[in-house]
């Protein structure tokens, strides 16, 4: 499937493809950050 048929820059992104990859990486980073915070901010005494 053709991903990008609107040519040209999208703001700071050179193409739609790079924009989509940024969103996907952002989604993964959010999950990673929340997973780490879940562990770091757990102070319970129970095992």
């Amino acid at each position, binding site marked *: 499937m053709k991903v990008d048929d609107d040519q040209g820059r999208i703001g700071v992104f050179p193409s739609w493809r790079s924009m989509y990859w940024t969103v996907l990486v952002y989604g993964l980073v959010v999950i990673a950050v929340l997973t780490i915070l879940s562990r770091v*901010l*757990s102070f319970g005494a*129970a095992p």
Partner: protein
Amino acid sequence: MTPIDWALFVLYFVGVLSFALYQSRKNEGVEGFFLGNRRMPWWAIGLSVMATQASAITFIGTTGQAFDDGMEFVQFYLALPFSMVVLCIVFIPLFYRAKVFTAYEYLEQRFDSKTRALTGFLFLVSRGMGAGIILYAPAIVLSVILGWDERLTIMVMAIITVFYTMAGGITAVIWTDVVQMLMVFGGIAVALFALFSNLPDGVGLAEAVYVGGIQDMWRSVDLSWDPTNTYTLWSGLLGGFFLFLAYFGTDQSQVQRYLTATSLKDSRLSLIFNAFLKVPMQVLILSIGVLLFVFYHFEEPPLVFSPAEVAAVEESERAAEFRALEEEKSEVHSLRRAATLELLEDRNSGLGVLDRQRMIEGYDSQLRELRVDAKEIVSEVRGTSSNDVNYVFPTYIINFIPTGLLGLLIAVIFAAAMSSLDSEITALSSATVMDFYRRWFRPDASDGHYLFVSRLTTLFWGLFAFGVALYAGQLGSLIEAVNQIGSFFYGSLLGVFLLAFFVPKSTGTGASVGLLVGMASVFLVSITTDVSWLYYNVVGAVVVVVVGMVVNRAPEGRV
């Protein structure tokens, strides 16, 4: 509420109404009414998309949910960025280039008229109900804060929203959504600021985070594989991915938004905007709930937050039993408060920290059990499940928010509700007029006639939502109720669109049969298994695609 609060509250309504009517002055005909003459900027659409999804239910229900269960609800939104990319690549270009008014109109271009009618009908049924629940949520708040009758509140909200939606159509809706969404952002900041201000001296951000962490309230990711649990990472990623594809890709209340853009690029940008902002916003809203949990370590919380539920129990034979639970709650709270303050004083020295943490955990468990017991009494007395979770944040607002900010926060809750309701009724109206009235009854009428009918159907759906709202009090946690209603239809609707996009040989008959079998499958799964409702979307979509493909392969005349 003081005069200042009232002034802010009234100012909000006057401001929103004036702004909506001013912005919609250039609307022309029915395309102007439903699509804003396709000239809306992407950032306004993006905020409107966000406002449509973030109703008052989001603000009230999720803070209450976080108060009881912590941050785990955020997992529900983690698939959203991934869904947005698929929507931008596949869904938006097809809708945009088809020059349709509604998502279901596209299905007639691709399949046939009966598929359009069936999907349009399902949308009207499910979202008509949803609009009623959206209207009901802020009525709860005002019934608590202002002592107003819930029905009166519902009526006032419905009249104002229907008025500006009828007058200005989608343009008024999108521009009011922009204002309302900015107010919601402001409201989140105010609520967080007020919560920190109300903590005792010596308890700051670090201490609040620590106290919440003792009970694991900040835990936002659950990696366990349990399909019966709605709030795990896997439920969120798999079920949420399908739910968001369905919601943003097949629900007219969202599709209509990005069809108003000036270009395909702007349509896409409006969703990308949401892909970046939605999860952080939800984290902040849930943090309010967790901070409320921390706050009530230092201030005695009610056992049950809903005044109506407490009043019902106190007038019943179970009153003595309930009062005994309240007394026990006061004792346990005093012990927890003392232990928490001592822990915060001593935690830097490290002496006795683990013992104190265990004590606090024990008190927390006791208080949770007392709250569960109290809610059981409420349920037995009233004959319906308790929806106390929706009163947690409003109760805090009434008792602890200073003058001026109270009026602002009430306006925010109104804003959140109205920005979702206006989108729903304009979407319901567009589907009614375009998919049914113009398609089946009056295909050749004038533009002015359709505009008149569009305003009339907007009024009708406002009244319908009002009727549903009157009975919404019988439902439990509102946020889950709305999502559950959607889940019975959404997955199957998504399946029809997936057939249209990805199976070139699929037909209208295959799609319609698939849709009905898909919905029956979801119903079957819901009554025979404990699988979380988030997976219903996956089941519905997969069944529709498979059945649609099988029907297409059947010899002609057999189906």
